[in-house]
């Protein structure tokens, strides 16, 4: 596969390390009383769609950035690639707006 890096252009997927569901960037905070279920769901119940999937890739042999890649798990087509940091701030804004 080829992952089009926002700055570095098309890069062979072998430069990257995969982590999984992009939801992993939204880790629950530990506050009293501790919500164990929230941590359980965060860690173990991931998105696993047959289709569009937002997922985390780390550019280990590159700029060491964590990227959020939007990819179709049935065709492997890549629709979007963004820095995790940008993705997070956008999502947070969206969430705070609703």
């Amino acid at each position: 596969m080829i992952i089009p890096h926002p700055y570095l252009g098309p890069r062979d997927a072998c430069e990257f390390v995969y982590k999984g569901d992009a939801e992993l960037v939204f880790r629950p905070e530990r506050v009293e009383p501790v919500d164990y279920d929230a941590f359980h769901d965060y860690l173990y119940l991931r998105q696993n769609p047959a289709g569009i999937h937002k997922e985390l890739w780390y550019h280990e042999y590159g700029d060491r950035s964590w990227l959020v890649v939007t990819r179709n798990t049935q065709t492997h087509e890549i629709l979007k690639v963004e820095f995790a940091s940008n993705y997070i701030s956008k999502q947070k804004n969206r969430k705070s707006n609703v």
Partner: protein
Amino acid sequence: MFRLESRGLINREKRLNFSFNGKKLYGYDGDTLASALLANGNHLVGRSFKYHRPRGIFSSGSEEPSALVQVGLGANTEPNIRATTIQLFDDLVANSQNHFGPLEWDFMRVNDFLSPFLSAGFYYKTFMWPKSFWEKIYEPIIRKAAGLGRLSGEPDPSTYDKGFLHCDLLIIGAGPSGLQSALMAARSGAKVIVADEDFLLGGSLNGDHTQINNDTGVNWVKKTIEELMSFKNVRLMPKTTIYGAFDHGIFGALEIKTNLERVKSDKPRQVLWRIYAKQSVLCSGSSERSLLFGNNDRPGIMLSRSVRQYCNRWGIIPGKKISIYTNNDDGWITAKDLKEAGCNVVMVIDERSDIVVPIKNVDYRLGKKVMDTKGSLRISSLRLDDGTTVETDCLAVSGGFNPNVHLTCHERGRPQWQEKNHCFIPGKIPKGMEVVGAASGAFDLNNIFDETSLKMKKILSYLGYKHQGKIKLTAAQKPYNVAPFSKSLAKGKVWVDLQNDVTIKDIKIAVQEGFHSVELLKRYTTLGMATDQGKTSNVLGLSVLSLLKNEPIEKVGTTIYRPPFTPVPIGAFAGRSRGKHFKPVRLTPSHQWAEQRNAVFVETGNWLRAQWFPLEGELTWRESVDREVLQTRESVGICDVTTLGKIDIKGRDAGAFLNFVYANNFGKLAVGKVRYGLMLRDDGIAFDDGTTARFAEDHFVMTTTTTNAVTVFRHLEFCRQCLKPTWDVHLLSTTDHWAQFAIAGPNSRALLSEIIDSKSDISNASFPFMACGKVSIFNGIEARLFRISFSGELAYELALPRRYASSFMEHIFETGKKFNLIPYGTEALGVMRIEKGHAAGNELNGQTTANNLGLGKMVSKLNDCIGNTMSEREKIDGEGILKLVGFAPTNKMQTLVAGSHFIPKGKPAKLQNDEGWMSSVAFSPMLNKSIGLGFIKAGDQRYGEKVDSVNPLNKEVIEVEITSPHFFDPEGDRLRG
């Protein structure tokens, strides 16, 4: 001789000797092994897979199902080489495969007579009684009979290489449409790669008498290639097979580098390319298919176009009495060319009755079918449905053409049926790929040229290039009409898959038994599963299936092709990564120094570390290791610990960050101090540990274990970028910049004072246990000093820029003489850490928790850090969980074994009594006995209790006493001294 006087694209000046089954033969430069064998009148080249029927050369390309031979001798021998694709070279040695006894008298041919009992799937229905016979008798016989060629059993002596190529346009196949595409792209300035599996570019044109723009096809090819070679933006790659199409325009290609000159060179014999193409054009042409009739597998029965090509391209006389059996116009072209060449065409049989015979003075039959053939090692005669018998020694068969759609299926696109030409054409095509020429199901050259031109213009403009000038190509008209598949099943022994010996009977039985879905049929009969992936058999099989199910062929479906297009050597896929080059080697800064002292090295990840330093007269490793421990504990020793991961952590929020990634508190760590840190995974399991030092408010230096250095850094970057994106934290791996040495032993401070510049004070008062700071050594070399101890001794770790490491070792051992300073390796390091009860890799195995390790109290309950929450789950935190403790044999003479399990005294050694396991053991020279660390249920409350340490693998049971893990200097006076 079976070679024509003139004709063919071979260099008759250059004669090449080769041997087949020991027979000395010769051919010419430009021959394939197959053409050279035919030139010597040799059709019989092997035996079939199951029935061991004699088999000959069937085709002239990579679709060849029968002519597989063993090429080369000794370690260089290579099985299953298609005689039809390997370019002949001098002294080539080839042998036939898969027969017992001489090729002509294969003893296994009895299988042919037993065939009624060896029908599809017979082996699933027998060989079950008596039970024990399967592995002992039946299976060994089956295994011996199966298989084709053989491996040498020796390491492959050849070298291979890999590479990466990038282009705007990859053109797959250099036939008419391929060369036309190449020419258009080349002139437009696009970056083009043209790959073709043949050593001669031109595809079918090299074997046909085509006219292009009033010139012969062969000349047109020559001129076109000359022009293409003049472009900088074109890379022509003959002998290069595009074996696979992968995601996002990545193609796998195998380039054969061996040629007449390079047969015996030490250079890579093959190069595996990964080609990144913005667009690709598939111009792979078509393969001919056979017709179904009795005994249609005999040597001498060949595909019609191949017969023509052998005659035209290689000047071969394929037989003395050639007959042609066709259901389409192409068969007549073969007849025409053969006659022009002066061959004896005895008869042309065409299944179609309503055609105009295109050539004169040839005996022919229309609307007739071949029913059966005779001949032992080669066809001698055929019989028509009207009873006529025809003497013949070469039957050229044409059942129409199958577009080579294989690469369009590699992303799981299914071919679709084209009624007009009765063939499967590309269905869903990979993104960025275009298919032109015969591969797309077009068979008339003029149409092909026009269609290609249109499609290429589109592609070029998409790529942002302008198509330059006009390329108008016109060829002599060649109509192509083909009859539909026969409506009746052929009788007798009729082969569908030549290589796997699948006949119509087998397919019948499979359907009869309910295996009629294409996939089940394929699996039950092995149809199309041979080394040719059914290139010549799949479509025939489907035609039979559609007759038996009496469904139209497009309804019965098709199996898809998977990579690779043709088989690729495993060695080529591995490239250079083999033997010592399997993985890179990382060397410690003191490696050379250690080598000079005959250190024994051990692999730790990709690192090589000194394991111990044997001295003259030391006979066993134990002697050396014991000495290193004793001498270090008595005076002072040095160990290279550079391999530990080192990460510089800087930023305003660095302290908070460490608090978050470590399970224990770091925010309050004072500048100039070091602290042990335990890192958990988010699921609460222990991940890694190490020490982290604070050099400034906003600067920490973390160490990780050697094995986890990379994964910890990745994890920290995740925490930084994804979990705390707003924090000001910066990470940098400095593992390779700093050479780091542990200096341990009562005399370590004295030794250090000798090399440290006066201005730095390291007295116990100003530089106590767990202190850290910058020092300068050997007159102004900036270094970092940490007062930490893994050995339990008064000890330091000194880090200095790597460039000084070798020189440093020389000097410090010079200085250290008076303390009889010694180097110690990882073994001694291990012994000392076990004596001190420190956990290491064997304990931090990804399955143990802080509680198991006896570090539960460290885990923060208050603030949010990675792992603390999930580590509170009952099964991880609950009563009676495993605890890390020490173990000592009650009988001092006995030696503990890591990996033993603990069973309560008097209970049988069974799973339900299993209480834990021994994780690390060592012989302690200090205590003069074997000691171990291990995990056992509620171990921390069972000190003094005796249990059995069982090791059923060696049938041994050792009684051990549960002790504190701190065997040596439990109060830790020595390290604070």
